């Protein structure tokens, strides 16, 4: 565990509403975008990364403690707000890491504001429409079922969540799911234009997928790989969609290596 692992809550006021985040560590700025089910707080993964990076974990607008932009209708709206937020902290550039739905937001940011981003890490990212399979639709599952499907298997779910999720967790999922539905009800979790737009993106990109991801098919990793010129796929063994919980050390190493490899392209952030 890193020594400088304190992640403290910070709130930034934008004209469009407040954005809450956790922030800690030092070094190049690394922004982590959470899954559709919300920001679970500081994880071991985040703490590990604080040894090399200034880690910022925002509640994306509409999720958690951030104000809800009731006017927002698309994932791209969220991406614009998140990028604005991140650029305020790191005007010279930041590493961008997105988990699941957060990966979808990150990919949209990469298309619209490539110059703001130093490197990209997509972990089980939504955003592209698989051709041979489907993204698991959380709207057709109970919260508990959906989260269980996000783990490698039931034992892993029970190990991390327990038989019954806490009330706080259920409240977080409920609040998050509404915002997810507001911007990604249909099409669910993809943007058919995104694949075309990504073809112009030259960012060094790591595409990290859990071997047993049942939420976003591995096929989507291959689609991202085909679209992004400078990308590589990394498959994490014995992990499902929630790689950050099931293989935090391996994931931290993958992220650190990817972002450090591209460190010459970055400044130290604002």
């Amino acid at each position: 565990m890193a020594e400088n692992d304190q992640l403290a809550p910070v709130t930034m006021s934008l004209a469009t509403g407040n954005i809450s985040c956790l922030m800690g560590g030092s070094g190049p700025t690394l922004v982590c975008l959470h899954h559709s089910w919300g920001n679970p707080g500081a994880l071991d993964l985040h703490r590990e990364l604080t040894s090399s990076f200034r880690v910022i974990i925002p509640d994306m607008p509409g999720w958690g403690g951030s104000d809800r932009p009731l006017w927002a209708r698309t994932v791209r709206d969220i991406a614009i707000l998140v990028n604005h937020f991140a650029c305020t902290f790191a005007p010279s550039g930041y590493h961008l890491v997105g988990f699941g739905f957060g990966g979808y937001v990150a990919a949209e940011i990469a298309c619209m504001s490539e110059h703001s981003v130093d490197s990209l890490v997509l972990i089980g990212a939504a955003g592209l429409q698989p051709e041979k399979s489907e993204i698991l639709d959380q709207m057709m599952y109970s919260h508990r079922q959906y989260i269980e499907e996000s783990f490698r298997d039931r034992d892993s779910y029970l190990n991390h969540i327990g038989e019954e999720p806490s009330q706080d967790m259920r409240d977080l999922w409920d609040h998050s799911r509404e915002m997810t539905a507001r911007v990604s009800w249909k099409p669910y979790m993809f943007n058919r234009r995104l694949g075309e737009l990504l073809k112009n993106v030259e960012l060094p990109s790591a595409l990290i997928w859990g071997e047993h991801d049942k939420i976003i098919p591995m096929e989507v990793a291959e689609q991202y790989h085909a679209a992004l010129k400078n990308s590589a796929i990394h498959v994490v063994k014995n992990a499902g969609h929630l790689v950050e919980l099931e293989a935090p050390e391996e994931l931290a190493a993958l992220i650190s290596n990817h972002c450090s490899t591209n460190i010459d392209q970055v400044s130290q952030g604002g």
Partner: protein
Amino acid sequence: MFVGYFTERPYQDQESGYFGATGRSITDLTMSNASYDPRLGADLYNRYLDEKIYAEEMGFDGLMLNEHHSTPFCMGGVMNLEAAILARITQRAKIVLLGNILPIWDDPLFLAEELAEIDMISRGRLVTGWVRGTGRESVAHNAAAPYNWERFQEAHDFIIKAWTQPGPYRWEGDHYHFRYVNPWSRPYQDPHPPIWIPGVMSRNTVAWAAKHRYPYVMLATELEPTRESYEYYTEVAKEEGYETGTQHRGYLFKVHVDDNEKLAEEAGRKFVQGPSNPFLEGNQGTVRPFIQNLPGLTQRNNLLPTMRSFAAAASRGRAAQHKEEQEKAGKKVEPPKPETPRDTYIDQTEKYSIISGTPDTVIPRVRHVLETLRPGSIFFWDGDGAMSHDDSMRSLRLMGSEVIPAVREIAKELDLKGPFEVDPQTNKPIENGDSAAPNTEDLANS
């Protein structure tokens, strides 16, 4: 008093296995339409239309239709088509649509045109009603649940304007955009058909209906919470500066009448058998809670007293919240519903959720409902679940010959005036207004 007739038009299929306790379970939005037999569907659609014709002959003032999607408990996915047919094949009864699910319409101009055509073909007999729909409908027609309430309100405003303001003009709203609003067909009734709003649990909708002075029709909810929900309507009305009357209150409840008590119980128990509405307590289908609780569909903390009922809460996927809230309030949690159809039937009979009997036993129980709730409009919900055509026709005959005349007398005694006797918009008596009741004695003897 306005007296209407209603059935959900269940898809009854003895062959598919989806029928009662002996077949496969009926779980909401899990059944493939591979089981659907269009020939059987043809028989059933025509049966239900025939029953509506007979209901008119028997003296009902209104023939009510409703709409659900991708489910066997209601064949009214395209309710407006049935309404258009009724407009042509019936003569006198109002055609009451409770209701079109506004948020799932991406093009409410189509709806404005369809309803106007039905109103014209029926020569002004349409009563239009609008609902927000359940989670099932949002899923089936893929309408974003968080915008359900916004779309409901905007579609309403759009249709009213399309009916009342001469075009052409533009409509640029939040959810709907039209560069040319100028529907050539306009409603027969001036300025437009009456609008009634049905509902079960949303306080938002009740408040909205009260603000618009639209009669609110409670759908098969338990008596005391229904009365309290009416009180909420009245509170809002007071804030809006008007007094409510019976003309603002409607109530749908399950009533079956039969030749003897044995037949009545046999048929009455069929309310909860077969492909009956899974929102009904004790029925043989199940809802999936997360479908009924889609994100943002209904404001979680703004529900009517009707949701105090365990059965109602459970049917809307809120059993856990219900238990928690009751315990927090220091109240005893209702026991789980009875396990057998017979117990369920008796339980529901005791609390007036089902009224089934001979005219002699049904009429006093209907009186109790009228005295408790004082509605100006009622709808008898019959012929549902596993009930056969014969069950329906026996009941309709007895309703026409005995129950409806008695109900009209009770309504006079209790001064229960419907929205065709007193205008809900103005609270003024309607000239020549009545409940459109024919001479039921003549009809019954004809």
